[in-house]
């Protein structure tokens, strides 16, 4: 970091404390936990994209060795409530096991409980289900049309959400602009696909009336949802937050799995565990992400300055309403990207089909939207014959314009986009990069420069919920931290959620150490279970640096204030004269007069007679923090502040394609990243580079492809292609720091960084490479052989 250090520990290149246990193989993942007497679940899945369940014959399965139970959807539905849907859709209910009708190939129809997973799989094969196949629909646009087969007959249509917003005078801005342009772009169905599948172990203790849950979970309100579905009090669900989660990036929602095993353990009286195998995970787990068509129209002037945009986004969310329709809502918070577009009309459509259900995926719908915006701005440049970078520069919000209110109601906190771009161009030696592209073209290769400029809304102010569902008036998105100092002077900070690799323990230790001026290694960080926890919303929406970091900061500040008050009182000086210095409280006018850490702790824990009047004994402070800028409901015309902070990233790359083969190869990749103050550089760098790798997957390799019969054909790792070390180039990361005014250290979120702009940048590079052939590719992923076919067709044209 080039900026001078304003902090003692924050922003310094410190190790990540969690790493020690993982490099020794001593993480504690869901599958590592086995309670005595645990039995194992395998699920029976529907082979058809849509089918009525006529009959389920369990007898052969129950006769198999080691089999304890076969559960069907009817029994489970009778005993539990449907899973929560964020929208009000009583005709499209979701349950862990299908009831009467199965709606996608791979949907769970029954669950077998046996002594081992292998025996459970043996028995699952023996469950005989009689089906009557039904008409089905796979394509989102088809499903949207009246007359399409209905995924849920009771819902009356396949449309879960169809909302139009107009922010500003779009019609007038279009009428007043000399140029208009329309394009359609498609984001293919891909997801985050963590290496660890979802797993959960549940054990009901009938004597204490507690359901213990050990799960690889990343989900807000998870215990509450389990309790609601199982019809037991929340205080009877004990989710163990100290289970390590083997990657999630949004998808580990696991609610249906947990309700299933929660019911089974209560019904059967022993611990029950379901660790998805990869097939279950890919076909019917919480595995899939957005599959979105965009129709974009923009109005612009002769210099390429965009005045207005109309965007229609139709997302094929699969067979049930999970949280996925809301993934059309988050992009409202950055609907104009980093650009000064005055007015926007946005239509968000979530439609059901006979595909696997979507769940939350890294960036919650923002990355597809960024891709659509970036494709559009490139087409504006191409249409006018202008330089793509120059057109971006003309449209970008300038540093002096922050805070910047966008048409949809969010105010961007801070940024210096032009400065980041200049840094990246300098690092990449842009002129040389262009010369290299041209040299490669002269050699007969297709070569292109990829560019994207994108935002990462962060902080997890999820006001898309009330925006898209007016019956939901939620405006609270808190996180929390409790810090205690014991009578030996040791510091313990509690966080109240799971982590899936984000280094939260390190962050809390760093923040508390910073405030209390102690070595962060002295701060133990714990994760109480959910019953013992303060409210949290879990690590979603790039929020933890802002929210958990903020809560830890405020709790530590409050604790420090108490120490100062205790010290001042004991020294007999006015509060204003007492200063906190490295754990001691010192009289600023007479530095030899002080109370040491040990003395202050002793007073708090043992010497009530020396405490200031009215002070509670001991040293423990909790802070529950509301999200900055949050707390208001949307206006009638659908404007609302979402997300307090907006990080910026600028990607620049060189991609080369051998025209005979069609396989894009990234030769150079430079990214500029500005997420304000960085709390831990190692963590932020890792997240950004990892996000880019994930974006490379979404752009070039990954797709949950279906055949015409409704079968998912990319259901193993042989066909759903995750980038390996071979596919991820060396990436040059350029940091920039524009602090946020809304956060305690100026930090912004970074958990989704890299992924926000990489797909758009790679699409930009591929399209630049293809331009000499007159081809544009407006869908992701851009698979090699398909590109090869397009190139061949273009070259064969006379």
């Amino acid at each position, binding site marked *: 970091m080039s900026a001078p250090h304003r902090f003692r520990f924050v922003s310094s290149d410190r190790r990540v404390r969690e790493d020690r246990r993982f490099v020794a193989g001593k993480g504690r993942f869901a599958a590592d936990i086995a309670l005595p007497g645990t039995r194992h679940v395998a699920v029976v899945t529907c082979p058809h994209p849509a089918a009525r369940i006529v009959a389920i014959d369990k007898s052969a399965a129950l006769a198999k060795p080691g089999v304890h139970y076969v559960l069907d959807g009817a029994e489970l539905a009778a005993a539990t409530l449907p899973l929560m849907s964020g929208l009000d859709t009583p005709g499209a209910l979701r349950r862990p096991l299908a009831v009467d009708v199965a709606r996608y190939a791979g949907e769970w129809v029954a669950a077998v409980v046996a002594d081992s997973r292998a025996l459970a799989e043996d028995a699952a094969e023996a469950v005989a289900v009689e089906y009557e196949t039904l008409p089905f629909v796979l394509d989102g646009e088809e499903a949207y049309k009246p007359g399409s087969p209905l995924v849920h007959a009771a819902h009356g249509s396949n449309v879960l959400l169809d909302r139009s917003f107009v922010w500003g005078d779009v019609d007038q801005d279009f009428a007043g602009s000399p140029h208009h342009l329309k394009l359609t772009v498609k984001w293919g169905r891909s997801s985050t696909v963590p290496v660890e599948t979802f797993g959960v172990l549940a054990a009901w203790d009938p004597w204490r009336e507690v359901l213990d849950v050990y799960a690889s979970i990343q989900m807000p309100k998870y215990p509450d949802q389990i309790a609601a579905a199982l019809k037991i009090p929340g205080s009877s669900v004990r989710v163990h937050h100290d289970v390590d989660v083997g990657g999630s990036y949004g998808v580990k929602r696991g609610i249906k799995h947990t309700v299933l095993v929660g019911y089974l353990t209560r019904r059967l009286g022993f611990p029950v565990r379901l660790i998805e195998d990869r097939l279950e995970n890919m076909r019917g787990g919480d595995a899939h992400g957005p599959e979105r068509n965009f129709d974009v129209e923009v109005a612009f002037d002769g210099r390429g300055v965009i005045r207005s945009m109309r965007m229609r986004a139709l997302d094929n969310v699969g067979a049930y309403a999970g949280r996925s329709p809301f993934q059309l809502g988050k992009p409202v918070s950055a609907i104009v990207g980093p650009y000064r577009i005055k007015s926007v009309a946005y239509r968000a459509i979530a439609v059901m089909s006979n595909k696997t259900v979507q769940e939350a995926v890294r960036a919650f719908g923002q990355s597809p939207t960024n891709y659509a915006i970036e494709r559009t701005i490139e087409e504006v440049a191409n249409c006018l014959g202008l330089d793509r970078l120059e057109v971006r520069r003309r449209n970008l919000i300038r540093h002096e314009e922050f805070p910047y209110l966008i048409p949809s109601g969010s105010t961007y906190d801070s940024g210096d986009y032009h400065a980041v771009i200049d840094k990246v161009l300098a690092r990449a030696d842009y002129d040389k990069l262009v010369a290299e592209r041209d040299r490669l073209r002269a050699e007969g290769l297709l070569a292109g420069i990829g560019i994207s400029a994108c935002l990462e809304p962060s902080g997890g102010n999820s006001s898309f919920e009330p925006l898209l569902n007016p019956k939901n008036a939620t405006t609270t998105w808190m996180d929390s931290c409790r810090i205690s100092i014991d009578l030996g002077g040791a510091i313990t900070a509690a966080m109240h959620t799971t982590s899936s690799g984000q280094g939260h323990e390190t962050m809390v230790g760093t923040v508390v150490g910073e405030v209390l001026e102690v070595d962060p290694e002295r701060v133990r960080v714990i994760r109480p279970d959910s019953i013992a926890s303060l409210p949290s919303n879990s690590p979603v929406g790039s929020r933890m640096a802002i929210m958990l970091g903020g809560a830890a900061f405020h709790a530590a500040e409050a604790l420090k204030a108490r120490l100062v008050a205790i010290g001042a009182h004991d020294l007999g000086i006015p509060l204003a004269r007492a200063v906190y210095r490295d754990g001691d409280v010192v009289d600023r006018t007479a530095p030899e007069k002080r109370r040491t850490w040990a003395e202050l702790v002793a007073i708090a824990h043992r010497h009530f007679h020396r405490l200031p009047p009215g002070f509670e004994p001991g040293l423990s402070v909790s802070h529950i923090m509301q999200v900055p800028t949050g707390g208001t409901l949307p206006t009638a015309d659908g404007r609302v502040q979402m997300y307090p902070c907006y990080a910026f990233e600028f990607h620049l790359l060189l991609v080369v394609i051998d025209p005979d083969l069609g396989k894009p190869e990234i030769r150079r990749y430079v990214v500029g990243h500005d997420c304000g103050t960085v709390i831990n550089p190692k963590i932020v760098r890792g997240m950004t*580079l990892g996000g880019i790798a994930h974006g490379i997957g979404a752009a070039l390799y990954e797709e949950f492809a279906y055949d015409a019969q409704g079968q998912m054909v990319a259901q193993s790792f042989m066909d759903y292609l995750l980038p390996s070390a071979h596919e991820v180039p060396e990436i040059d990361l350029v940091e920039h720091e524009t602090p946020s005014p809304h956060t305690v250290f100026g930090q912004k979120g970074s958990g989704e960084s890299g992924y926000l702009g990489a797909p758009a940048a790679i699409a930009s590079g591929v399209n630049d490479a293809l331009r000499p052939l007159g081809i544009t590719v407006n869908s992701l992923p851009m698979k090699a*052989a398909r590109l090869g076919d397009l190139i061949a067709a273009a070259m064969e044209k006379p």
Partner: protein
Amino acid sequence: MKAAAFAYSRPASLDEACALLTADDGARVIAGGQTLVPLMAMRLARPTRLVDIARMPGLAYVREDGDAIAIGATTSQRAAEHHPLVHAMLPLLARALPFVGHTATRARGTIGGSLANADAAAEIALVAVTLGATLTYRDGEQTADIAAAEFFLGPMVTALAPSAVVTGVRFPIWRERVGVGFQEINARKSDFAFVSAAAQVSLAPDGTCVRIAIGVGAATEVPLRLAMAEEALVGTRLTADAVRPAVGDALAEVTPMADLHASADYRRRVARSLAIRAVMEACEDAKAVGKASAPAHTQARGQNRIGAVAHADGAANAILPTLRVNGQTHPIDVEPRTTLLDCLRDKLGLLGAHAGCEHGVCGACTVLVDGVAVRSCLMFAVQADGHAITTIEGLTPAPGELSVLQDAFCETHGLQCGYCTPAMILAAHALLAGNPSPTRDEIVDAISGNICRCTGYAQIVEAVALAAERLRGANRPVALRGSPFGRAPQDDGVQ
């Protein structure tokens, strides 16, 4: 994703193996199992009995045998890849082998197994057809030879009866100076090829082609030899103008396959273009060989880390119900269908090996078998007895203490969620044990069989490079440098 139950035999002789195969229609041979086990895990293959020939005496060898290089069926792909005879006399196979799966699958996968499996995209099969190799097999009492061209009938279908066992393959040696070319296109480097192409040429001193073999794989149901093109090209100077039409004509009547990843049209076009490239590459290679003082192929490529191909294991027949893990011997009592991964986790409580995909792609289950990185989900525990197995727990020097490599991962933050990390460290350990100064490309290749979804790999590559640097700088007795990662090696066998 657990295999259906099966019986397991490890016969001491081919006679015994053939008797087992004849007695049971559902019995199948297993050697490395790198293709069979994933199919079993998905229950797409359901053998009633596995007849394990991996340690049968006399089937693992690479030797010069008259005008051929003979390779025993159970010779591991890794052993062949590093064998000096293969480099010297069979350069086309040496060029092709790095494209076969990953380092970790080549450690277990065998030459004979790949041939017998007859995947349309298999590189070894392509080389066999291109060079006109001859397979030897045993069926009951009968031992016989079959030409590679007649052996492959379709995807996963061969001319052999289910009761037959491939015992070896002989690749003809071209005594003259040859050049080779191997080209492959796939989605990711280690995936099945969309198309691959192989060529071997020998040139007269004036540059005219004396002899040429050209083959195309993965485009059609079986590997294709372009005999027509070969005939047309002998006697030419292999100029692009000569090669293009010759290859084009030879492929004119071919009907390529289509799948999720590549269309038939794509395969048709790319088969042509890769075959041309392979020929041109071979031609350039031949010219380079001609200029060099010695044939390039006889020069050692990297370290030859394989001392002996055959297993030291003498008592091949004895199925010892024990597992040697991290220097300790454990009795094991598991069904044959229990993978090594599940056995380590569920029976021995060694939880550092993780299940990611259970079909051999993600690498999260990687352990060391005799010092070499291997996927423990692609190995049944019963296959593992007698081998020295090392898990992450065996690399950790002491409770609370980290090895140099583990510490380097902490220093660069070469991880996030930690799920793939133990496997990644084991793969890196295996690399550094044989290569103290790896290049970036070598590090990337060594970890390319291990998927990490968090990091984008950069900080992992940095960790491995940092560990290598620290280990090189460490002032340690030479004798200990073979295992500078933690405790002394536990008779890790072939290193």
